[in-house]
């Protein structure tokens, strides 16, 4: 177990005009035993960061420290880390047991019997004892991923690095494995850095998530904090499914005015200058359907996607499409004109140029109980 610190990490590829900066001045840390998830769209630098931590990529600038010691120049095997890959990366000519024991054979002085003991006890932990003599080609996707996890666990490393380990699994297995990995990490208490582009994985598994975009850290914090108090428009749009609705508004006195939308300025945004444009963000699940002509705006329901417990309704309000999550099926019907309204606590305001959040809410739901039930005023 160990603390991982990334300090001012920069990683570039190529030279001259072809130079690409994959990671720019990234600083973050994972506490001892913490489950940190790096999340972001393709090409945001999350896997490059992981490879730098693993020692598979050299660092252009900055420091990586494990338990206080700078490991920039250490080879991967000397960093006390283990890694799980997206496509499992099991050695195809070795049995599951040989795959798991290979790292021990190459890096420790353990005897064959000791290696076997450790492999067997890890296999027991993962419930893959009966797979040990099988080769990867005769294992299913889920079994391969368990063996790959076993290969990492058997090394008893200070830090686990996981690069989209569930991406190749089907939806139901992914959900099962998600729980298993969480439970394993809890039991073992090993500091874990987990890379994914799937925000559901990030939200459900992480102690904290770090959201990256184009090599830069956008926000790091607890999943619900990033969800309720996004630092910028990118984080607000990336975290949450369906994505947050955004509309351009201008402050006119005590009202935020947009195309076909009027909303009183939330109290926490009182200090914002009048006449300035802002981006107003509101999550689909924060919107409630009201009678047409009342509420913040009125629009026409274009499409309804029933999902069982909830439905997604897509409304046209002026020229914009607004997504609303409603309870159950039948709350609205296609073609119906309805009004929409939302509580002030759930309104997000962003600077339209920089995307930075302005007048961020200070607390999460539940922390200040009077914020709920919903109210149009803070």
């Amino acid at each position, binding site marked *: 177990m160990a603390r991982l610190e990334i300090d001012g990490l920069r990683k570039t590829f190529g030279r001259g005009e072809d130079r690409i900066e994959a990671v720019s001045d990234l600083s973050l840390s994972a506490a001892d035993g913490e489950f940190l998830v790096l999340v972001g769209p393709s090409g945001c630098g999350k896997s490059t960061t992981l490879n730098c931590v*693993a020692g598979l990529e050299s660092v252009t600038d900055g420091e990586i420290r494990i338990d206080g010691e700078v490991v920039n120049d250490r080879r*991967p095997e000397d960093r006390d880390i283990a*890694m799980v*890959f997206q*496509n499992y*990366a099991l*050695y195809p000519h070795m049995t599951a047991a040989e795959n798991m024991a290979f*790292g021990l054979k*190459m*890096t420790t002085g353990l005897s064959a019997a000791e290696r076997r003991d450790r492999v067997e006890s890890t296999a027991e932990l993962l419930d893959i004892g009966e797979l040990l003599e099988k080769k990867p080609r005769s294992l299913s996707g889920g079994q391969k991923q368990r063996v790959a996890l076993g290969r990492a666990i058997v090394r008893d490393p200070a830090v686990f690095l996981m690069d989209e380990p569930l991406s190749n699994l089907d939806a139901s297995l992914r959900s099962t494995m998600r729980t298993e990995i969480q439970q394993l990490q809890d039991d073992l208490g090993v500091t874990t850095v987990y890379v994914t582009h799937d925000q559901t994985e990030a939200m459900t598994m992480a102690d904290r998530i770090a959201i990256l975009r184009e090599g830069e850290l956008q926000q790091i914090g607890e999943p619900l904090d990033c969800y309720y108090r996004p630092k910028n428009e990118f984080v607000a749009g990336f975290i949450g499914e369906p994505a947050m609705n955004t509309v351009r508004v201008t402050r006119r006195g005590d009202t935020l005015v947009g195309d076909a939308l009027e909303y009183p300025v939330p109290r926490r945004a009182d200090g914002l200058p009048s006449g300035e444009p802002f981006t107003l963000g509101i999550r689909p699940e924060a919107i409630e359907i009201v009678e047409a002509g009342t509420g913040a705006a009125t629009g026409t329901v274009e499409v309804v996607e029933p999902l069982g417990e909830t439905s997604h309704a897509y409304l046209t309000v002026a020229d914009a499409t607004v997504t609303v999550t409603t309870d159950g099926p039948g709350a609205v019907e296609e073609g119906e004109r309805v009004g929409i309204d939302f509580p002030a606590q759930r309104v997000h305001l962003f600077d339209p140029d920089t995307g930075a959040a302005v007048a961020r809410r200070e607390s999460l739901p539940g922390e200040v109980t009077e914020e709920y039930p919903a109210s149009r005023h803070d």
Partner: protein
Amino acid sequence: MGGNTDTTVGRLRSGVSWSRLRRYCYDGITYLVYALAIGFFLFPVLWVLSLSLRTEGAVYTSLELIPAEPSLDSYREVLDSGILRWLWNTLFVTVLTVAGIIVVTTPAAYAFSRFEFRGRRSLLLAVLGFQMISPIVIVLPLYDIMRTLGLTESHAGLVLLYIGLQIPFSLWLLKGYFDTIPTELDKAARIDGCNRLQTLRYVLLRPVMPGIAVVAIFNFVLTWSEFVMAYTMLSPGGEDLYTLSMGIYVFDNQLATQWTNVAAAAVVGIVPIIAFFVALQRYFVRGLTEGAVKG
């Protein structure tokens, strides 16, 4: 509208559908073309085998593929005439050449597949460019160079020459194969404590084995039957240095009238290649379909 009524469209009275009939026809034509192709390539070999089993007189009098009175006399004569020495020389040169090519091209292909370094693309194109040059065109300058180096009239010189000439094709073939192996395996190996050479030795060598088998077979066949280079480099050195292809050529000249002996010598020369091919056929086919073609 039952499927088995006579009125059903697309179905014959017998109950066989038109589409199935069409498929039978396609299959029939396919097998016919296969049979013709196999016959075309196999007939000369079978004819040589047939000649080798005849008595000298029957060569000119009979057109039967299976001789009326089979005889092994020509094999006895051929085996007594020094062909075993040439067979040994050929085996020696071929095995060393194939081993040399694999030893050089495996790490080279690994490096070209995995490492980004300055000039990588140019080097690969240069290697490919060399492959475009026919060895016949450069045989005389090569002879000059080899003579200057004192490497003519020696099997070692011929082996070095073969390795040099056959590396480009083998390198491209094997690089294509390495390219199909996910780089995550290399990463996993490095995490598991392997350096680059250990990654190649312990982790990648086995998955790339079908590709190596393809390289081995191609070069085995090529080297075993090569004539021009061998004749140019070895012929002044005397018959003891000859490879099989040179031997058969000499044999042909010396015993021009004894076609059965020439045929028997050819059969003796072919058998080891066929045996080698059959032994590695599984890898060969898998290697072609998995590596070189896809890569």
